[in-house]
């Protein structure tokens, strides 16, 4: 079984889905000949030709808008936004059409399509190249939002996204594109959308994260374990529709929870999860659910990023505080 990093796992998922189903086409800015600025689509044009892996004019609204048409007319477009910061010119197409076509036409026109893009900070990049804004998409009814945190998951989740009859926003944590390798089966496998993964079982506190923040969260869990505590670690994997069942079950067990995310705190994904947990596990909560997040600010340019991005230590501190609450 090959050892792949997350980026190569994305590439492999695209390649296999394109082999499996000739309706799958991949396009975006610099996606074809160049293979993408991160090389996620490398080799696809060579293998499948210019009619399956296309370079496009510089126009995100058009990339997404044409994908709507493509999907209606029998294709499965998997389009790339070069960075998460550049999806916004396509926002109208996403909220007004991608998310609505099925409902608007009462199921007559459905949109099996994927919009994938690298997101998140920590790579010392220019402005607009480091944002995380998953809650913006998760608030839109009619689309699904998926974020992998390992190479194995990236392949399995992207494969599911491409086969999903519903449109999926697939956000790739670019900070860990090449951070580590994992065994990734060449074989076909899918990871279901909408299911979180309990990565580590524990009894004292539940740590919930996704994407690149899983790395910091795993490290924080290790620190807590060293201190003799028993953290449960959950990778959310799907932001919308998220797996409330798994989360509630865990928090009913531990009574304490810390949610970790990069995106701005206010109106972020953490707020949604805390509210859901408060509604469904109110009587089990032994401390207020806590959040370790990016600030409610614009993510700073690289010389300030280290402050903004949740670190292992910030998670540890908040977890300890939560565990010590009223005990």
């Amino acid at each position, binding site marked *: 079984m090959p050892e792949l990093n997350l980026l190569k796992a994305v590439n492999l998922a695209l390649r296999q889905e394109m082999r499996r189903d000739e309706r799958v086409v991949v396009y975006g800015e610099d996606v074809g000949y160049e293979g993408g600025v991160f090389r996620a689509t490398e080799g696809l044009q060579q293998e499948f030709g210019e009619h399956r892996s296309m370079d496009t004019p510089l126009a995100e609204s058009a990339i997404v808008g044409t994908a709507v048409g493509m999907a209606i007319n029998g294709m499965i477009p998997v389009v790339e936004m070069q960075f998460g910061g550049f999806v916004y010119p396509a926002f109208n197409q996403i909220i007004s059409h991608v998310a609505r*076509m099925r409902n608007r036409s009462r199921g007559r026109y459905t949109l099996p399509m994927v919009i994938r893009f690298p997101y998140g900070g920590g790579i010392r990049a220019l402005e607009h190249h480091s944002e995380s804004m998953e809650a913006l998409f998760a608030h839109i009814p009619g689309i699904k939002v998926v974020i992998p945190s390992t190479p194995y998951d990236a392949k399995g989740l992207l494969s599911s996204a491409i086969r999903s009859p519903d449109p999926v926003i697939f956000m790739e944590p670019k900070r860990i594109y090449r951070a580590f390798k994992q065994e990734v089966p060449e074989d076909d496998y899918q990871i279901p959308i909408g299911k979180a993964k309990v990565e580590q079982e524990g009894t004292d506190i539940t740590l919930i994260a996704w994407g690149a923040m899983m790395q910091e969260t795993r490290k924080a869990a290790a620190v807590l374990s060293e201190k003799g505590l028993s953290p449960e670690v959950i990778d959310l994997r799907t932001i919308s529709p998220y797996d409330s069942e798994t989360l509630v079950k865990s928090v009913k067990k531990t009574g304490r929870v810390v949610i970790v995310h990069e995106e701005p705190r206010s109106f972020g994904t953490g707020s949604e999860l805390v509210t859901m947990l408060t509604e469904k596990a109110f009587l089990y909560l032994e401390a207020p659910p806590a959040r370790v997040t990016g600030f409610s600010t614009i993510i700073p340019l690289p010389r300030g990023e280290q402050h903004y991005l949740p670190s292992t230590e910030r998670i540890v501190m908040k977890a300890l505080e939560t565990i010590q609450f009223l005990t």
Partner: protein
Amino acid sequence: MIFENYNPLEEKRFQVMDETGNIVNPDLMPNLDEKTIIRMLRTMLQAREIDLKLVMYQRQGRMLTYAPNIGQEAATIGSISVLEKEDWMVPAYRELGAMLWRGMPLDKMFTYWYGNERGSHMAEDLKILPVSVPIASQLLHAVGIAWASKLKGTTEITITYFGDGATSQGDFSEAMNWAAAYQTPVLFICQNNQFAISMPRSKQTRAHTLAQKSVAYGMPGIQVDGNDVFAMYAASMEAAERARTGGGPSLIEAYTYRMGAHTTSDDPKRYRSDEELDSWKGKDPIARLTKYCLNKKLVSEEEIETWRKEYIAEVDQVFKQVEQNSDMKPEEIFENMYSKMTPQLQEELDDYKNYLAWKERGQQ
């Protein structure tokens, strides 16, 4: 050939039939059989009667907001009639005539405007997209559909409609550029009805014609007398043949006039004069085709009157049915959000049903 001879930069406008129904450009008169011409006239008449009726229902408080197509029947029917059954139509919201031509059932159309999504559920073989409200956004769907047709190696083409105002939107430009760059088989039909709500065409853009915008994309473009159904047909046919044979997209500016209000919420008297409206009444596309048909003895005044009465009766009857069958059950709001209902939605629906039960029980 028509496109070449009517360069919009020379401010030429293509016409075949003048305002009195005379064929002034016989060389370019399309070769249409009688049956088709009569069908055109009938569809235009039907579209007009539906418009008048729905506007009236709205005034009576029976109908919600409606966007009439009165005055623009030739622009839509002259262009849609070049399509084959396998071709695609991507509308904005003012293409009643074109939808009728394609066989869209009245009850669906009325259900849509009456405020129920069921109206946008087309039959499987009716390749029409739902009404698209966000201006110009649908043009990209047309380009995507046509691109897929091309990639699949079919000869399907796609026609899409939009207004003069739509040409100011970024999506218009992106769609035109993309279609030309990838030579996708699309007919861009701009219904220049001279207004975007209250905004006159002259203020919308400094370009003399909308057709000349095609130059920016290396695409053929032409301005056509949009109230002349034959000119619309001839230009559209040329564009369709080009598209089918790999020649890529075209832009047709149908120079026409919105004779009614923007929608039933709008009062056009606020921003335009009676004289202007009257001058356009003289160019009414239906009057023009009617004169042609009467002159050629393709139809009689009596036949027209009979058809009109039939159309009116049909509208009355279908609309009554729609009025009675349009309530929405809560389930309908949730069922089509995703291929399978999510647990979150199921929970919300259950909650809502609990609430309904509580109300039913007298709030106990």
